[in-house]
């Protein structure tokens, strides 16, 4: 295969302050950032704001855990309600949903398909401003006294009884929803219309497949959340409506509509992270992903099946048992495409030339934790067991294994893999590995005891509990502190590396994919010349040719032979 030369200065790129012109120094000042239409700069804007919300959500998580140190709680019950609601709203709507698509997807999707930008750059910038506006409403809601309904806003409590800032939070979520719709729209249209010559659908990196499937879910599910939240808000304003039994309405209708969005939203959070993991595993073991087409199609299957299982949140909400049976069966069915992914990633590792650098550690961490999260998902999808564990810490532990163990691990793995590409500087490998191990230990210590707590009957959202649960709660809080320290280390060395990190070569990992065939950081137009793709996805070049691109060339890592019929040149 041909290697595109990527020394920018050799390519005749203009220089700025002795550095080659890249998207980072092509224009200075706040204005050039806030009015940018460059998908890479918008990704950086998202990175800064979304990470800020991650920190805010994390602080609320720690406050929740501090409260649960003692059986009687540290805060009063009303404050506690507001704390866990703030944690849920911030983490779900302002961090997890936009994290991978709006940051990594925005930055990488056009580069990976060989395009200069997304299809609608202005709409992309608009989506960031919508995010900021929605997030501002959310922040005001929290600062002005908080919301006490939980992130699920169940009616009629949210419409008729709660004395907290439900409206402000609802408006914020509505606006942020439109922000992610605009991102999804851009991804779908871009993937359809902007692929470089030769970049066929089955040559797309699996990351792109993951983003595409996510975009489908975003486009079809988010408007339902928008109308549900609108109807809830209007009902709260007008004191008439369709969700309050006192007015002849049905709260279960709200739950159906809410979960019609919020179950697929789980896939909005985890599908793009799965796309990241495919890249991590393939590139860090220098092997084509085993069963590429199965992994690609399983993303679409998850997106479709994800729409048919929302009723598993209503097993104890008066839903008929027969309906429950169907939803239970369909929920089991979603496990199949998820399992295909896990098996194929594992098979990819087999006889691969594995590197244990940080991105791979996160990739392996994802597989292990998502496995636990997914398998316990089968427990709660089973009608009989769910009646026992509904609304307990078992469910909390289950979805944190999926959301934190899955989405967050995938997000952080991706951030490490592409940090050099995005910023031009590598993170410090030693600290990163240490932080990952600390996070992994802290995470398991936080959430594994919660499985036991839930099984023993500790209900979620309670500020106080019987003293016999204290040991497990203290363990969990200790784990959360360790997890917090791990996160802090990551944040610190990422910021530190911006000035002090080693310069990132074009391809520090010996990875495959178009994004590694342009400089780090890429120029504003992404490539010096439009790439023409003549190779299949995950075809790895021999080590020697990778060294041209700056791969340090670990000679202990061999490479998988390139299949003859595909490798046209080289």
């Amino acid at each position, binding site marked *: 295969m041909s290697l595109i030369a990527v020394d920018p200065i050799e390519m005749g790129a203009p220089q700025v302050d002795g550095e080659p012109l890249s998207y980072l120094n092509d224009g200075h000042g706040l204005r050039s950032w806030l009015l940018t239409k460059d998908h890479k700069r918008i990704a950086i804007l998202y990175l800064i704001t979304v990470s800020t919300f991650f920190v805010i959500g994390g602080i609320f998580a720690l406050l929740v855990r501090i409260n649960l140190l003692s059986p009687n709680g540290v805060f009063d019950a009303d404050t506690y309600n507001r704390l866990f609601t703030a944690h849920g709203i911030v983490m779900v709507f302002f961090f997890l949903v936009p994290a991978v698509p709006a940051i990594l997807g925005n930055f990488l999707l056009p580069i990976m398909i060989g395009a200069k930008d997304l*299809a*609608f750059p202005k709409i992309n910038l608009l989506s960031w401003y919508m995010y900021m506006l929605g997030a501002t409403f959310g922040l005001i809601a929290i600062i002005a006294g908080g919301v006490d309904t939980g992130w699920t806003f169940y009616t009629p409590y949210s419409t008729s009884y709660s004395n907290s800032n439900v409206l402000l939070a609802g408006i914020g979520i509505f606006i942020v929803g439109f922000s992610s*719709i605009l991102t999804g*729209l851009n991804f*779908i*249209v*871009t993937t*359809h*219309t*902007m692929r470089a010559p030769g970049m066929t659908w089955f040559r797309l990196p699996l990351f792109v497949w993951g983003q595409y499937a996510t975009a489908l879910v975003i*486009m*079809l*599910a*988010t*408007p*339902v959340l*928008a*109308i*549900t939240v609108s*109807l809830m808000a*209007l009902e709260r*304003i*007008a*004191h*008439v*409506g*369709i969700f309050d*039994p*006192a*007015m*002849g*309405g*049905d709260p*279960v*209708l709200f739950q*159906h*509509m809410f979960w019609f969005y919020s179950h697929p939203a789980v896939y909005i959070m985890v599908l793009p992270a799965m796309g990241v993991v495919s890249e991590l595993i393939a590139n860090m073991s220098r092997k084509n992903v085993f069963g590429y087409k199965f992994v690609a199609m399983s993303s679409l299957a998850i997106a479709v099946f994800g729409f048919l299982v929302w009723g598993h949140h209503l097993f104890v909400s*008066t*839903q*008929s048992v027969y*309906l429950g049976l169907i939803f239970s069966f369909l929920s089991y069915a979603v496990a199949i495409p998820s399992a295909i992914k896990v098996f194929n990633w594992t098979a990819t590792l087999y006889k691969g030339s594995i590197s244990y650098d940080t991105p791979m550690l996160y990739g392996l961490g994802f597989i292990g934790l998502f496995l636990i999260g997914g398998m316990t998902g089968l427990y709660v999808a089973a009608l009989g067991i769910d009646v026992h564990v509904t609304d307990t810490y078992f469910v909390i532990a289950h979805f944190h294994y999926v959301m934190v163990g899955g989405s967050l691990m995938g997000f952080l793995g991706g951030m490490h893999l592409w940090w050099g590409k995005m910023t031009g500087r590598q993170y410090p490998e030693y600290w990163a590995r240490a932080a990952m191990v600390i996070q992994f230990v802290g995470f398991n210590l936080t959430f594994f005891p919660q499985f036991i707590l839930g099984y023993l009957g500790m209900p979620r959202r309670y500020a106080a509990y019987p003293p016999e649960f204290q040991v497990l709660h203290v363990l969990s809080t200790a784990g959360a502190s360790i997890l917090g320290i791990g996160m802090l280390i990551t944040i610190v060395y990422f910021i530190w590396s911006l000035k002090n990190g080693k310069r990132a070569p074009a391809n520090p990992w010996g990875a495959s994919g178009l994004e590694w065939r342009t400089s780090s950081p890429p120029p504003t137009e992404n490539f010096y010349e439009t790439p023409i793709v003549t190779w299949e996805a995950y075809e790895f070049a021999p080590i020697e040719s990778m060294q041209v691109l700056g791969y340090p060339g670990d000679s202990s890592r061999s490479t998988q032979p390139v299949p003859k019929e595909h490798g046209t040149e080289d």
Partner: protein
Amino acid sequence: MEQQREAGTLGMWWFLLTEIMFFGGMFLAYTIYRHLYFDAFAAGSNVLSIWWGAFNTAVLIASSLTMALAVYHAQMGNSKKIVFFLLFTVVLGLVFLRVKYIEYSDKFEEHVFPAGDFRWPLAEHPTAPSNVGQLLTMFIGIPPAGHTAEAPQQALPANIDTKYSDKSPYLGISGAIPEEVSKMGMAGHVRMYFWLYFVMTGFHALHMIIGIGILLVLAFQAWKGKFSKEYHSYIELTGLYWHFVDIVWIFLFPLLYLVDRHL
């Protein structure tokens, strides 16, 4: 250029899909409660003026035609005619909103606006047109002769319709319904009908207003000569949006106005 056009069209279709999901939530609620409270929905529906509804349906169908003609002339590169048909579409849109305004005011006057001083049953409909002449004079703001002011009304909880007390409003559960609900009886469910009426037509009207705004901008740009045979995709995309908003009304009209009216 061709790639941009393709991207724009695909993007608009996907956007319309999200719009379908958005309205879908309301149609779902409508379907469920119409099934549960059919009599109340029929009674509420009969308060609406079929004259206004039919007139507005005709107006919107006509506006779809003028919009299509604007797109046609955009493809022909005929700037003057683009401006004419875009403005024609705007005028029809404004006629629609004017009628909607009359209808909404009538509902306030009849005390069936659900969030206000809701009263049921309704004694008579004082302000609906009953022939084309009245429709036209009322459109320009002159009430027809014999227009009566407020009719005597009964307060909300007074009318208890026991027919409803044996029918549970909950999806999939059987058993007694809360006392507050049965106390409200039929009136409460008529009120829910009007809630859905205002929310659904309100969101539709909002889409009309946004559409009119876009049309005005396009008309201005066409007047400045910005569009040509080669470059007119914004007009085509707005056409798609406008037709979509019309189609939503084509569903709303029978569902809200014609619940149990037969020819």
